[in-house]
């Protein structure tokens, strides 16, 4: 059971917690000795997913955001960002670049950014129940922490 290197954080969807989420995740992933670019890719993708929880999932209330980060000996990072918010009716539509329900200050690029900076992006959502976004990235590591 405990052969997996994994960490979990949970925090309320205050917008001011976004930088905390990025910092916590990059501090954990740092043990894989990623390049600055690899780390920034992950930070950017996580930032997009957390923003989605804050401005879409919990649009008119504060709810909890749950993040799990797992790293495996081969250097693969898996980040799961889960909310118990409103859910997404039409996931393919939500993932289209420039589509947004977030108003004029949102570019509709969250998923496009996740997809361009990570190797895999998976979205599972159920209206009224919540959304889980799973992000995977292989670190071309020089030193595997294990």
């Amino acid at each position, binding site marked *: 059971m405990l052969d997996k290197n994994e960490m979990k954080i949970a925090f309320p969807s205050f917008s001011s917690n976004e930088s905390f989420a990025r910092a916590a995740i990059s501090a954990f992933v740092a043990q894989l000795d990623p390049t600055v670019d690899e780390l920034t890719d992950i930070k*950017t993708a996580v930032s997009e997913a957390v923003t989605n929880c804050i401005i879409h999932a919990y649009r008119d209330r504060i709810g909890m955001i749950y993040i799990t980060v797992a790293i495996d000996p081969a250097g693969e990072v898996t980040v799961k960002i889960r909310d118990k918010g409103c859910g997404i009716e039409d996931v393919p539509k939500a993932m289209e670049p420039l589509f947004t329900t977030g108003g004029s200050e949102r*570019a509709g*690029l969250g998923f*496009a*950014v996740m997809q361009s900076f990570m190797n895999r992006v998976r979205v599972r959502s159920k209206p009224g129940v919540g959304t889980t976004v799973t992000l995977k990235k292989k670190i071309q590591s020089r030193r595997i922490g294990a």
Partner: protein
Amino acid sequence: MPVHLIYREESVRAELIGEIDDYTARQMREAIDPAISRLHPKKLILDFSAVPFMDSSGIGLIIGRYKLMRLWEGEVTLSGMSRRIEMIVKLSGAEKIVRKERREQHAG
């Protein structure tokens, strides 16, 4: 304050300071909008020299200011972008509507 505003004759230069996400983009917008809405400058320069990180909230910030500046036919120029910020701007297509300025040594 995450923004320094520098006023010149017909332009306003906004030096953005710190990471840009949904939270800080809101603060930056609230600092910039009252100033440009009052002055109607011909040019708004968004300077990213002191921005170490930006997610797509930065694109919303750029496009939102562009729309506002268009109300009096002003234009938006992006300055001091890192390679990563430029990548996100490129991904968004926003580079088609704004001008770009090379990294400046002085903000004088």
